[in-house]
């Protein structure tokens, strides 16, 4: 694995459990040592150095706050080890607790706090040391959804304020998309794709990335020539993506659910590529209607129709209807089959809808 993280970047490693993201983080922190290779921080190779000598600090998934110390003592622990003068420790700890909004709880013990508060103490305890790199191991994993959303915003804000490089580990694709400057999608110890959130979502490069981020609408296809791909049991579509594949190579065409149009075959726009299928189910989600359309024996496509008006929603074809799915050529991307795709197929998250990303 080869990875470059820029100074001041909010970098996320995203992947299913067991993909190696936490191990990578622990190697940067120094809890585990790489058997081969280097870990460079600011140009210095720290591989082989123990954790306490490295310019990194970690926010643990379980917070790992010292239960026998007050919040103040917890936050001041790192500065004390660095022999920072007492007065300075005091002011820096106070400033940091102020930042996370826990000044009044300074004399309390961690077990007297809620999960969200403990998480903020863990963040303060790491940030107060002004590390070169802050490592966050699913820091919001144990919190409920609403709290998590609030803290995501706060965390991003804090990162902008302090300008420290954040390396963030999560299995939550939405969290990764909303917070990161760049995302490395990992699978079985390898990086499948490393790009900014928009690229990762809009232009995934492998079936794994397409499936892990958002809903996978994968249509088997064959690159039929430079700049053209032929979808199995479907039309040939011109696409610049085809240049990445040699002629005759197998690949998959991906179209995001919200980019698909669903119409009765006779009403379908003739100037757009499309495939025929049968509606299997239709779910009302409030903001949209989600349809599953079977286009081939083993290919099912998910379609999201935004809830624009009552009238339009009523006119959508119901289950059992024969329909045609169409899309604009520029909304279709080709992905290569991941090496680990077979294994990943079992553990693919079954997110039903990706709100707010369009």
């Amino acid at each position, binding site marked *: 694995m080869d990875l470059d993280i820029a100074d001041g970047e909010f970098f996320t490693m995203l992947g299913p459990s067991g993909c190696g993201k936490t191990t990578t983080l622990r190697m940067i922190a120094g809890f585990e040592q790489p058997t081969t290779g280097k870990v460079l921080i600011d140009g210095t190779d720290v591989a082989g150095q*123990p954790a*306490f000598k490295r310019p990194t600090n970690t926010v*643990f998934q*379980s917070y790992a706050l010292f*239960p*026998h110390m007050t919040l103040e003592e917890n936050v001041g622990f790192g500065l004390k*080890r*660095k022999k920072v003068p007492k007065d300075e420790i005091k002011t820096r700890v106070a400033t940091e607790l102020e930042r996370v909004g826990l000044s009044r709880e300074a004399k309390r013990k*961690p*077990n007297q706090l809620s999960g969200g508060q403990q998480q903020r103490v863990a963040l303060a305890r790491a940030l107060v040391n002004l590390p070169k790199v802050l490592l966050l191991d699913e820091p919001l994993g144990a919190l409920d959804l609403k709290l998590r959303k609030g803290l995501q915003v706060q965390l991003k804000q804090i990162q902008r304020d302090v300008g420290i490089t954040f390396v963030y580990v999560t299995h939550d694709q939405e969290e990764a998309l909303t917070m990161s400057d760049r995302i490395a999608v990992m699978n079985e110890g390898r990086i499948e794709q490393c790009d900014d959130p928009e690229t990762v979502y809009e232009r995934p490069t492998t079936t794994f990335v397409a499936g892990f981020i958002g809903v996978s609408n994968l249509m088997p296809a064959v690159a039929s020539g430079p700049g053209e791909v032929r979808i199995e049991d479907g039309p040939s579509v011109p696409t610049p993506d085809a240049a990445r594949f040699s002629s005759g190579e197998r690949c998959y065409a991906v179209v995001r659910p919200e980019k698909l149009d669903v119409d009765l075959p006779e009403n379908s726009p003739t100037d757009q590529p499309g495939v025929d299928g049968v509606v299997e189910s239709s779910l009302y989600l409030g903001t949209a209607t989600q349809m599953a359309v079977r286009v081939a024996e083993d290919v099912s496509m998910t379609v999201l129709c935004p809830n624009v008006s009552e009238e339009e929603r009523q006119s959508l074809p119901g289950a059992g209807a024969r329909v045609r799915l169409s899309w604009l050529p520029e909304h279709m991307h080709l992905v290569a089959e991941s090496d680990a795709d077979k294994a990943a197929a079992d553990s693919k998250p079954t997110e039903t809808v990706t709100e707010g990303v369009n």
Partner: protein
Amino acid sequence: MKAWHWLRENAVMIVGLLAIAYMLIPILVIAVFSFNDPSGRFNFEWVGFTTEYWTKPFAITELTDSLLLSIRLAFFTAIGATILGTLLAIALVRYQFMGRRAANLLIVIPMATPEVVIGAALLSFFLTLNVFELGFQTLLIAHIMFSVSFVVIVVRSRLIGFDRRLEEAASDLGANAFTTFRKVTLPLIAPGVLSAAFLAFALSIDDFVISNFNSGSEVTFPLYIFGANQRGIPVQVNVIATMLFAVTVIAMLAVIIQQKRAEKAAAMRPEEVANKPAISLPV
């Protein structure tokens, strides 16, 4: 009919009370007989009530000396066994080394071996070695030897439930191994270490069999009582025994309260503590 019904309703409580009575009456007898005014040399029959012996508990010099010796011995045993046992427990829980599983088993052997065997074996060992003079030194070595296993077991159980990520966090924040142990590990296992020390103290002050073999000319408190039994036990023995009992109970209560408080502070998830026994101190 009504009485029978009442009996059935409260059967568990009655049996429970009987069991407790069975355990505590002998101790109560000791306390009661410390107020006895025996006519002869033996304090086995109730004659009359007196507080005379409570006013002069330390009147018998040999008795007082033996008690002081036992306290001194128990004190040093507790310190020695606790340090050794804690280090052993840490090694057994934390490190992978050749023979770790065997060591885990060997630890319980001194507990399972009959005391007479240990006592006799130690005596022949000391005589063969011929380095230590039989007396306080050999007593201390013997007492630490048989207490260590208990300390290891108490501290080990505390270490097994220890969240290693706390040590990683300390290391992450710049603490080296020694500082991590001093500032994080030790304070968090302290309740276990403290119970272990109390346990070692209690085991030492109470030991008769092993001490009997290895005491040389020294006379510990249990040895004195056993010796006195031949010629008549003075009432002061009951008085001091009652005092010891009271001190032990108070110390135990103190440990329980302290441990409860520490566990509450240490518990990130309180429901886990509720399932754990508050104390493991079989005094």
